[in-house]
């Protein structure tokens, strides 16, 4: 399917477990982003990537790890999940043109019990 996809769409995990959220885009966009959105709030940037093998921290990176070995994939790993990481996670991508819009995935709803 063309576009940007996320998996899983829903995940329940226990405190202390490692969990990986997947993001895949088919546009060959250079930039990819991970955001979290907590109930009733706007989105906060966790990590972003300008290209394969180039990543950088956003506003709330603690407790998260990212990698980008291929342009089309940008997985987000919670190394040891905590209840405060219960949230909806959105992946986004954009091209390299000035002012290019970001395209967002459908989101992953993660619950940490």
């Amino acid at each position, binding site marked *: 399917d063309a576009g940007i996809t996320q998996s899983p769409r829903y995940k329940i995990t226990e405190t202390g477990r490692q969990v990986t959220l997947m993001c895949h885009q088919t546009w060959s966009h250079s*930039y990819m*982003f991970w*955001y979290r959105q907590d109930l*009733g*709030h*706007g*989105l*906060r*940037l966790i990590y*972003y990537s*300008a290209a394969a093998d180039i990543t*950088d921290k*956003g*506003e709330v990176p603690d407790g998260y790890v990212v990698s980008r070995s291929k342009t089309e994939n940008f997985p987000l790993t919670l190394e040891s999940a905590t209840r405060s990481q219960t949230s909806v996670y*959105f992946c*986004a991508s*954009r091209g390299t043109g*000035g*002012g*290019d*819009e*970001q*395209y*967002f*995935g*459908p*989101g992953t709803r993660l619950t940490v019990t």
Partner: protein
Amino acid sequence: LAKTTQPISMDSYEGQEVNITCSHNNIATNDYITWYQQFPSQGPRFIIQGYKTKVTNEVASLFIPADRKSSTLSLPRVSLSDTAVYYCLGAPMEYGNKLVFGAGTILRVKS
């Protein structure tokens, strides 16, 4: 990155024009003013973007005064399906395009 201020919520009726104003006193010279729309359980969707004056597309119009300290998103003849959260933000033209989302404006369209 620019901090924006928007009304928390707005109510409207079907068929009316809705104007949502956003204040961004410290918008950077190289930032676009950008609006996104978000429906429940979905990711945000780009609506419109501009630098100054007026921009119009098939969905909305964006009015930006010369001083760029505010902007107004105009939605003509809203319908129930326009009920959503609308975010105003500065989008850097350059590297990274790191967007800073505020709480947004909840628009409720009633019949």
